[in-house]
């Protein structure tokens, strides 16, 4: 299996008012295809910044980042947007679905920017909704769905471009226990059955327990990187 993410001595600095904040202080990490890793840590540990850099939403101040073998540390905004659209999938805590728009149209959205033809968009979006088990809700609007169902739509949306990596930022943060379990089982299944690489950011140990590898951040550095022997299911 090749490396999907390879970061070396990754640093991120930014100023907050008059203060210089060192959000990442030299992070080294390799993530191979097919992995399911949970990134943990308290708030301010740098885990969100790390996810933003890995997700090409942000650029590192120093260090190198190779995504699928290509150095992407110095790319411009447009090139990063193109890679996000073609090789990355995002799942957010707040689902971030377009309101008053059907589940199907929401799932189609990334393909609109990728320039996929309308008929293909519809077909692929339908397939992905099926994959996450809510094909019957294709015509529903977000406000007609439960939180768990909305998050499934968001997961389907993250899958449409067959991404090399899915980044899930606190995907269960807004869900009740039952829905959380459902969503985490879905991730586990997608990883196990489809071999989809997943990086999950969370601060809840019971959510991280679904991953096969757990990386813990503190003060901008990785403090532990362990294999989860007892993966939850």
């Amino acid at each position: 299996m090749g490396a999907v993410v390879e970061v070396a001595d990754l640093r991120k600095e930014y100023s907050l008012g008059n203060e210089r904040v060192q959000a990442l202080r030299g992070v080294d990490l390799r993530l191979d295809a097919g992995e399911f890793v949970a990134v943990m840590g308290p708030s301010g540990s740098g885990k969100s910044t790390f996810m933003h850099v890995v997700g090409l939403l942000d650029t590192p101040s120093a260090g190198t980042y190779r995504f699928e073998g290509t150095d992407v540390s110095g790319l411009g905004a447009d090139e990063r947007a193109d890679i996000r659209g073609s090789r990355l999938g995002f799942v957010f805590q707040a689902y971030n679905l377009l309101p008053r728009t059907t589940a199907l149209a929401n799932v189609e959205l990334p393909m609109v920017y990728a320039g996929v033809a309308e008929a293909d968009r519809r077909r692929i979006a339908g397939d992905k909704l099926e994959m996450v088990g809510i094909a019957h809700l294709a015509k529903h609007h977000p406000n007609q769905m439960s939180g768990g169902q909305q998050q499934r739509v968001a997961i389907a949306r993250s899958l449409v471009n067959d991404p090399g990596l899915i980044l899930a930022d606190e995907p269960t943060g807004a869900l009740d226990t039952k829905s959380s379990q459902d969503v985490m089982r879905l991730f586990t299944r997608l990883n196990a059955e489809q071999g989809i690489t997943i990086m999950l950011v969370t601060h809840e140990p019971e959510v991280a327990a679904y991953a096969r590898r757990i990386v813990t951040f503190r003060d901008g550095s990785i403090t532990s990187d362990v294999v989860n022997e007892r993966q939850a299911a």
Partner: protein
Amino acid sequence: MSLKATLAVALAALVRNKARSLLTMLGIVIGVAAVIVTVAIGVGARTSVQQSINSLGSNLIVVQPGSVTQSGAKTGFGGASTLTPDDGLAIVKLPGVAAVSPMVSVRTQVVAGSNNWQTTIGGVAPSYTFIRSWPLAAGRFISEGDVGSAAKVAVLGQTVVGQLFPDGSSPLGQTVIVKGAPFTVVGTLAALGQSGLGQDQDDTVLIPYTSAMERLTGLTTVNSLMVSAASATQIDGVQQSVTQLLEQRHRIVPPATDDFQVRNLQSIAQAASQTGTVMELLLAGVAAVSLIVGGIGIMNIMLVSVTERTREIGLRMSVGARGASILRQFLAESIVLSTIGGILGIVAGAAGTLAVAMFTHWPMTIPPQWIFASVAFSAMVGIFFGYYPARQAAQLNPIEALRFE
């Protein structure tokens, strides 16, 4: 991202907020409708003025008596009784003059059988129908012989025919009594309708000017001389030569003022259409201001929309939208808003024009180039006022946009 996809995304976003989109459009709708109605009214008024002036006669020059000072008091125009039929005969010999007719007008009662009617008697020459481009409905007009013998013949306007012969019988050969004298009706005039000033032009009886002077006024002077220039280009020249000729004939040497006044309808028409132009400019200015206000409304709503949809923008960016795509999407939204507003404005403007046309009976048309210009202009309003909010959206940082509460 294709143009079609961009437009589809923009339309979807607008449909998601129907009420707001419609209200935002309203500014542009009103602005464009105002432009259309304004232009149509301007064109209609101008055409209407032109028509009513043309209906008075082509290339017409009117010579009226001027003002005289009697015992230190100025009489105003028409006060001088100096114009004579001989002046007319002299004018007709001038180059560029097609025809001349004196006009002696008297307001009096006309009686036929048991019916009577108060109307204006016009003493004219045979050339009058030519000068006024006024066709006959029946019979014949006043002849040179009638003028020579001061014959008691009359030609009736349609209003007078209706009043004196209400049973619909032909007035031809009948006798009408004008100031006690019997006149034989030899012809009737075609209906002309109202003049540009709202007068009923058909409410008249025409008789030879010699008969009018002899039997009605008892004067040797006439009220005015109507001169027709041979062509529109000769109007100014004829006006000058008429002035010179009459100054000679009336022995007027500067510094004495002329005892007559020569006016041509073209100058009246020009004055009227200049007034129209000023009005049009004024109304167009108001319309332009309302379009700008409409544009500011669009900008305002687009700014609100960008703020409100910050997370949506963040999401779009995270799934691969470039800044340029976001810019195009919001720009497309404001252009679609303003263009649909413009089209609705044209429809509203056309309806308004129709209403005004029904009310005023003006021949109103909306020039097609204005329809095109309105749509183009409203699209430009959309681009101009939509650019700033769209740029704000495109320059958002995706991380901050996603976190936006």
